């Protein structure tokens, strides 16, 4: 799980320029940090780094809105 969290922080840092390790519960959509193109990049990054496939047709933004939720969701898909 720590590995997954670190991967999520790294991907978010690369995407947004912000290190979220101190604020893992920030709502990335409400603050405008992630737009739809960023979300795509994040999911592609998770595909590449963790070998998971996100079922986009069932994508529910509320399950992905914070770094912690992203890590938990990614772990459940592994």
């Amino acid at each position, binding site marked *: 799980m720590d590995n997954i969290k670190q991967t999520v922080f790294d991907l978010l840092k*690369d*995407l*947004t*320029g*912000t290190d979220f390790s101190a604020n893992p519960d920030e709502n990335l959509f*409400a*603050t*405008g*940090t*992630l*737009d*739809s*193109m*960023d*979300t*795509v*990049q994040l*999911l*592609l990054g998770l*595909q*590449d780094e963790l070998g998971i*496939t*996100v079922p*986009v*047709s069932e*994508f529910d933004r509320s399950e992905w809105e914070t770094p912690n939720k992203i890590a938990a969701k990614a772990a459940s898909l592994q």
Partner: protein
Amino acid sequence: MQSTIIEAIDAVAMQEPNRPAIDVLGQVNTYGELKAASDAIAADLAVRPIAAKTPILVYCDQSFAAIAAFLGCVKAGHAYIPVDTHSPKDRLTMIEDIAKPALVIATVPLPLTLHTPTVTPEQLQATMQDGAAAPAPSLQGGDNFYIIFTSGTTGQPKGVQISLDNLASFVAWMADFNLPTQAKMLAQAPFSFDLSVMSLYPALTAGGCLKVLPKETTADLRQLVTALPDLDVDVWVSTPSFIEMCLLDPTFDAAHHPNLRQLFFCGEELTHKTAARLLDRFPAAELFNTYGPTEATVAVTAVRITQDILARYPRLPIGYAKPDTTLRLIAETAQQEGDRVIGELAIAGPSVSKGYLNRPNKTAAVFTTDRGVQAYRTGDLGYIEDDGLIFYCGRTDFQIKLNGYRIELEEVNHYLNLAPMIRQGVAVPRYNREHKVAALLAYVVPADPTVDPATLTTAIHEHLQGVMMAYMIPSRFEFKDSLPLTQNGKVAIKALIQEVNA
């Protein structure tokens, strides 16, 4: 040259009137219908009291009516100015002010009243059905065929004038790629973005079919992945950002899309990572990276990206110049960097625009002639290998590309500084490891420092949505007490870019 575009499309209509020309999510219109509708629109324009060769603004969605209106304008001897329905109202009035169009044709209702006489969607539909014959062709090779507005500094968009000769040069080059016969080409970009031209005329002049994925579908990931499996195209045209969205669908691969033979990318940098993912999914398809500014008609360089190219170049080449065109480094900008000479790229050739509509000063600043050939200074930095392969290395100014859209940071700054809740603001791009702009941030000194950041962010967002294109709005706002200044008292944008990208 008159024969090249319009007559080629009409020839298909006369030989095979029932051949599908445009397919918008299963709603198909034929070449016969396209000819009848565009002829009738041209006939209607010809009897209106409008001056010859004045442009016509077409406010449009990605529909059959839009394409019929474009061709109708050209058949009546007028250039069309496509303005997408997702443009903000301000942009529409600014384009009207600069272009002074003779007429507005609206394929969907206008969001506001313009001064210019307007053909409503209902009137347009009635005209398209009336069966009138087209007037005699009058558009000459040097006359404008379309005018596409790009963003400009301080909020003033610039209208790039593309002549019939410019477009014919581009379309002839595209035919050299050995496109499948009567290609089914993806049409995803809105018509106000000149990437759309890469599908539009290469498909229609060759009897192909435009497979339109409208913005309403592509803006929603779930709708997109629902529509993708049924999308039967053999030629893909999009920005790299768009196909990245499609890659989220695990069935978007050669096994599920066996007919997909060629993929063309333009509008922003194709990264090594994305190209590698694509060759993995579509190992037998031909993947082309292309490059070109709107000012030189869509694209002027191309290269097939193979496993060999991926292995050789960590940052992909943008290609070789098309045969009728020269790209060279502007001598006074060229500098030795390591074993390379990097400089500003200039493009000279028959697809280079005559300049910006009604903006002689802006035109003179970047358009010139090179040995008698029309030439354009791109503002793009690059280097050219001995065999003519060209590489892009960034911008000379503060223009960026984000998700395929060209954004001038000064324009974003202009709007930030007009916002009542902002005392001073500056847009700062954040680059990722692939040298791509990943996000646009804004450093802002608030007018009222006591407002909390979340409330302020929401207020600024709401304000900016009313005045600027959605793609230009910074995704994140950092609030500061002051911004760093240069010795001249200007905001030290380069320092901020370094800070953000450290």
